[in-house]
């Protein structure tokens, strides 16, 4: 069930980030933004990729070129279609006119769609600098931005820094665990040769949101401990979960640490 909920949230979050309440601008006395905001409502019911949607947002921008929302709304279709240049031009304008509201979003998209590790870190650290509150989650809702930051440091070879960031985030007051947090942390420990902490995190993931990846990497831990019997049992569990679709998933990209059939086959061969 948790898995289905995460799919739903993921699919939903990209398509409908919060439409601003236009009356807010009216109450603030910003009639220009109020008019622009009303114009964006004409995009309702149109697909984000469609010309009708794009034109409605263009008209809002024409009314108030400093209104961040329509830039971000327009940018989504370019992001999903792989047009990084137009996406970046638009999202940069959204960040310019509302950095607090858009820096975290830009950061997580840079990570998720383009694996732009350095750029993502710069954005998140800038957000940390200007924000007095929790910096929030990735665009798809799967990760806290500190975890995204950690995964970028991992990709740049700084694994201990990545571990420290995730461990710190897990201990933050009121933190709601991300659906893949323990898998990523477990894999980081595994790669660092800390088998005991790797095992601990895979057990936590099993209790929270059990996925094929979790057992696949647990199998690797047992293999490293030379316990081939348990390694085979864990790998078999990975196969069973893989077959029913309990895997790390993202309709747009391949999540880091996701496993594939070919990886399972290689492991099976190594255990026989």
């Amino acid at each position: 069930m948790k898995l289905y909920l995460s799919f739903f949230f993921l699919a939903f979050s990209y398509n409908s980030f919060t439409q601003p309440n236009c009356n807010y601008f009216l109450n603030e006395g910003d009639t220009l933004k109020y008019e622009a905001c009303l114009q964006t409502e004409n995009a309702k019911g149109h697909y984000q990729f469609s010309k009708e949607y794009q034109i409605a947002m263009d008209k809002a921008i024409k009314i108030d070129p400093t209104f961040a929302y329509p830039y971000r709304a327009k940018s989504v279709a370019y992001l999903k279609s792989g047009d990084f240049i137009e996406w970046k031009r638009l999202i940069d304008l959204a960040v310019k006119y509302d950095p607090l509201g858009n820096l975290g979003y830009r950061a997580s998209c840079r990570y998720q769609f383009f694996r732009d590790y350095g750029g993502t870190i710069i954005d998140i650290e800038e957000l940390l600098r200007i924000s007095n509150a929790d910096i929030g989650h990735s665009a798809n809702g799967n990760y806290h931005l500190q975890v995204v930051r950690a995964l970028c440091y991992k990709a740049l070879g700084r694994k201990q820094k990545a571990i420290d960031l995730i461990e710190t985030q897990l201990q933050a007051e009121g933190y709601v665990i991300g659906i893949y947090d323990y898998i990523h942390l477990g894999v980081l420990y595994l790669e660092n040769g800390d088998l005991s902490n790797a095992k601990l995190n895979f057990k936590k993931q099993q209790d929270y949101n059990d996925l094929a990846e979790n057992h696949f990497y647990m199998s690797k831990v047992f293999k490293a401990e030379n316990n081939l019997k348990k390694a085979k049992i864990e790998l078999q569990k990975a196969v069973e979960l893989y077959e029913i679709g309990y895997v790390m998933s993202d309709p747009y990209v391949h999540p880091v640490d996701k496993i594939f059939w070919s990886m399972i086959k290689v492991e099976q061969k190594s255990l026989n």
Partner: protein
Amino acid sequence: MNKILMSFLCLSIGMFSCNEIKDIEKEPYLRWVGDIQFDEEIDNPDFKLCYTDNNVRQYFNFSKGVQYKGEKPAIDKYFLENYKPTESKQIGFLRIRFIVNCKGETGRFRLKGMGQDYQPMAFDKSITDQILSLSKKMDGWLPIEMEEMNNTPWDYYQYLIFKIDRGNIIEIMP
């Protein structure tokens, strides 16, 4: 005058680079962002859609991720084994977008390159030619279908993004 200059530039850089520049140019809105219209100058006329241009979907409409025989590792392996690193100082991203029809055939390839600063960049021909040619030869794309639509296979847009570092492919997305 501008058109003459652009034509000269395209001709001098070569067909594929021209393709890249063409894609960077601002287009009036089509049906959907990223739609690729047939261009008789660069597109293979033998590639046919199963339906009409208005029925081409997006890769993510099916929520199944990339549909390729052998999954993502097969894509990585294919380019790792067949792409030959070249002498180049360029660092950036190269995107190739195309259509997969309902039979798993591909066509209407379009390139777009950018530097690390997300600004347009024309990659060396030794890189673009290889990636374009290899992408056209990929034969593992699978038609995708939606349960909600009687599992009918549809035509869809797919893209690959290559992270290029001095003539080497260092990462492929999605």
